[in-house]
């Protein structure tokens, strides 16, 4: 399991990095934490001819919190999110989700941008991005652009990113202090990719009814997605036992999971409902 031959560059500016990425006929790849890319190269599933190491690019490693929301630089690592106490209030859902990513050593290296670009259907960060209507800021040969999370993930390990584009930032909209949220996932061992997970939030109006419900799921289907039928169940209703049961049933009905070696499709379908149910209970609790 040795990597195929490749060239390596470690640019110090974003424009240089973009130029390098554009220089190899689409065969160059950005290198961030390396926790997904390098194993794929060792298995020779990925065979880029040039690796463009992003580690010397300045300004991409910060977590910025303002009235507009949370901005995660592409090189922010899982560990940075875990250690940032400001996020407990600024984005509790993000914090709850990232606690489930991988293991200690991997959390020290894996990055937000890498996870978004890699687009594993069960990964937490893409799930949060989709559930929260995040914007993904990218820079390429043609300049900077913003891609909505809903348009970004096209399938398993497939995104709207052009080969010469680098993710610079993930922007999560502002989080009102009164917002209710819950995150639940289940993996066979702690730190494994989830067999199914739910990331959701809603606001409560004066009468105690939910509004603005966002329900995202991971690990079921080829990409993270929001479940509109479940959101419809929640919006305008009090989040009580009956609503939660209805929402869970709607969640199971809304997904088309695949079977794999870890779980059957029927199990995943049921698990999706259970995750939504438990996430709602913790949000309401």
């Amino acid at each position: 399991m040795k990597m195929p031959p490749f060239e390596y560059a470690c640019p110090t500016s974003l424009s240089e990095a973009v130029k390098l990425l554009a220089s190899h006929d689409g065969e160059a790849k950005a290198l961030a934490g390396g926790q997904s890319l390098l194993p794929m190269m060792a298995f020779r599933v990925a065979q880029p001819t040039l690796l463009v190491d992003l580690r010397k690019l300045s300004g991409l490693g910060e977590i910025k919190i303002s009235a507009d929301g949370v901005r995660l630089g592409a090189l922010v690592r899982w560990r940075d999110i875990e250690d940032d106490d400001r996020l407990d209030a600024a984005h509790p859902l993000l914090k709850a989700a990232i606690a489930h990513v991988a293991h200690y050593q991997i959390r020290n290296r894996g990055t937000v941008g890498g996870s978004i670009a890699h687009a594993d259907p069960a990964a937490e960060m893409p799930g949060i991005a989709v559930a929260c209507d995040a914007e993904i800021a990218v820079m390429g040969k043609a300049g900077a652009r913003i891609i909505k999370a809903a348009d970004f993930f096209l399938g398993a390990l497939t995104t709207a990113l052009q080969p010469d584009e680098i993710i610079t930032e993930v922007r999560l909209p502002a989080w009102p202090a009164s917002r209710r949220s819950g995150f639940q996932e289940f993996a066979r061992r702690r730190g494994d990719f989830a067999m199914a997970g739910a990331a959701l939030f809603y606001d409560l109006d004066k009468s105690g009814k939910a509004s603005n419900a966002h329900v995202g799921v991971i690990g079921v289907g080829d990409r993270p997605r929001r479940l509109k039928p479940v959101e419809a169940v929640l919006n305008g209703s009090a989040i009580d036992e009956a609503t939660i049961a209805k929402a869970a049933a709607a969640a199971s009905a809304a997904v088309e999971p695949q079977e794999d070696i870890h779980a059957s499709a029927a199990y995943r379908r049921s698990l999706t409902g259970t995750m939504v149910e438990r996430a709602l209970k913790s949000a309401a609790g």
Partner: protein
Amino acid sequence: MKNTFIGASIERREDLRFLRGRGIYVDDLTVPGLLYAVILRSSVAHGRLKSVDTSAALKIPGVHAVITAKDMNFTDYPAGVPIVPMRLQPLPEFKPFEQPVIAYDKVRYVGEPIAVVLASSVAVGEDALEHIAVEIEDLPPVATWRAAQKNESILFEPTGTNRSLMFEARKGDADTAFRDAPYTRRENLRTGRHYGLTMEPRGVMAEWDAAKNKLTVSGAAKVPFFNRRILAKQIGLAESDIEMIENDVGGGYGARGEFYPEDFLIPFAAKHINRPVKWIEDRRENLMAMNHARETEADLEIACNRDGTIIGVRGDVHTDMGAYMRTNGAVGARNAPQFMTGPYRVPHHKVDSHLWMTNKTPVGTYRGPGRFEGCFYMERLLDMVAADLGIDRVEMRRRNLISKAEHPYKLATAQPTNAHDQTDSGDYHATLDLCLKEFGWSEKSKLGGKLVGGKYHGVGVACFIEGGAAGPKESARLEINRDSTITVFMGTSSVGQGVETIYAQIAADALEVPIERIRHVYHGSTNTVSDGYGAYHSRSVVMGGSAVLVATEKFMATLRQAAGKRLGCAESSVTLDVDKVVAGGFSLPLGEFAGLTAESAFLNHKHTYSYGSHATHITVDAKLGHIEILDYLVVQDVGRAINPLTLRGQVIGSLVQGLGGAVLEDLKYDEQAQFLTGTLADYLLPLASDFPNLRCIVTDDHPSPINPLGAKGAGEGGIVAAGGCMANAVANALQSFGVQPRALPLSPTYIWELVQAGQQKAAE
């Protein structure tokens, strides 16, 4: 001085070098001019090998050679390609199913070696793999034992069958007993496909010295003397032309150290190209090339009296053997039917065991071979019978455990190998009682089936015996050094069990010297003693330890003779005092006798049987199918504990492996026999955080009568009953759904499906 090193919890002398990162494993070795071997493995499960074109690979800079079957012309073998013979149960019936060292006419599993690239680095070698053109004509793959049974697609055409053998385990007259039995129950039970994953994958480094006609093979493990014999015959050298060197070994579990194709291919490559060659297995290869184990399906019937006493068991066990009969491949398929009755008194026993060849990685032994499977069948049956007959589960076991007075108790005999076996000693009831008491069974079992905080509580119990001490013999040698220390040389091997410490304890006690005097313990290489047997079947302590004892006797006799002569004293007056030889008021430094050596062997044809009980308290989240272990206790009596500290490590370690097999691990194939679990993200080993609440108690109340130490093999007690105990606990937890697990692993999907089925049935 009277020593008591035996029985003391002495920290392992090996630990210092391991913990400081100073262990030397085969991959740490390098020599000038070394080439790296990389193996091209079949990606096709079943097919006819038409051609292998290596020309493009040979053009890659850094590639020195590519070896295929065409390079072999060993006239002792019909196709010129050596065959790996069986080490255990080498029956003539198995001959046609043995594995060639490299594919030449057919490929029979994904992972079978087709070519060996010799390159300046592993990376270059792997680059070259992509340039070897292999033409394979697909044949219908046989992906399950049920498909094999149809005999439509046959792996070894000349044999006309995919069944390499049927073992018959027999005792009493089961058919008559069943005819008259007041109660019977029949069940289908399955175990998953596992393997003894070693932290350090396999590795071989071979150096050929043409001038001296000497082949040195590093990376040996487990059974180096036997493997030297195989290699010598295959490659056409005398045994004494070959030296097998054991380095530090990162785990064995039955799998590492058996003779595999690579154990021929790498020495052959070194000789062929006349340069040293090293091959280190990577994890993907380890998953698809090292022996698999355990995958069985059993159709069993049990007959009992109304009071729960067992009358008999009968039925069939089907084992998915994979593509070839490997060195120890038949052991599990023989043990499962023969030893499934474990510690229980079963007067009538008739189980047939069918060995089915399939297009999967071949199987071999894995810690507790056949016993893990058999114990699962038996323990599941006992719980179901107890429920049927309205007998408490613990009482059911008490009524059937072999009593103290019944030893030696005869177990079933297995044909055609005529394998007789019997227990040696022990009080099985006492161990069960101790286990239940220390576990808190009477309190915890009240929770069984209760829903607390969204989770169902369950308790399980299971009992086991563990066979150990395989004969026929083992050797040890002691030698005096100039510095008045003593070196012990062993015919057994270390696979990480801590035998250097244990042998030093035994030798120091026997010689009545401080343990530091036993400065080095060497083992596992073919230069230690004249003949050795190795590390398997929980035999190192019993066989190796007893060999140390008999060698110390001979050593002292030899020393007394030499010292008596030197000092002019009676031999009987000679004693050893730390680093001096003392007699009749005279004393000489031990080093004066440097070079004095004595080798002796311990012979034994009987087996030891350590035994014990498992109890577990779990919760099950019925919606997730997720199991959490709140408490797990193993109590094992080992006859005599040489080192309770390392022993506990054995029990807990094997328990974790057992729980892996019970809950997580499963090597999977699709219907085309394509291998689906080629990474550790797919094959789920227990992580450090998965099973935190494990305990064990080891006792040594009942020494084995069959060896001078009184010790019993004890490497497998944690693993054997883990599957049965966990499945029983799940059944107990989910009793309100009528759940009865009949298969391992207890995966979330499986448990969830059982709950669904139970709910559906209740609704009807």
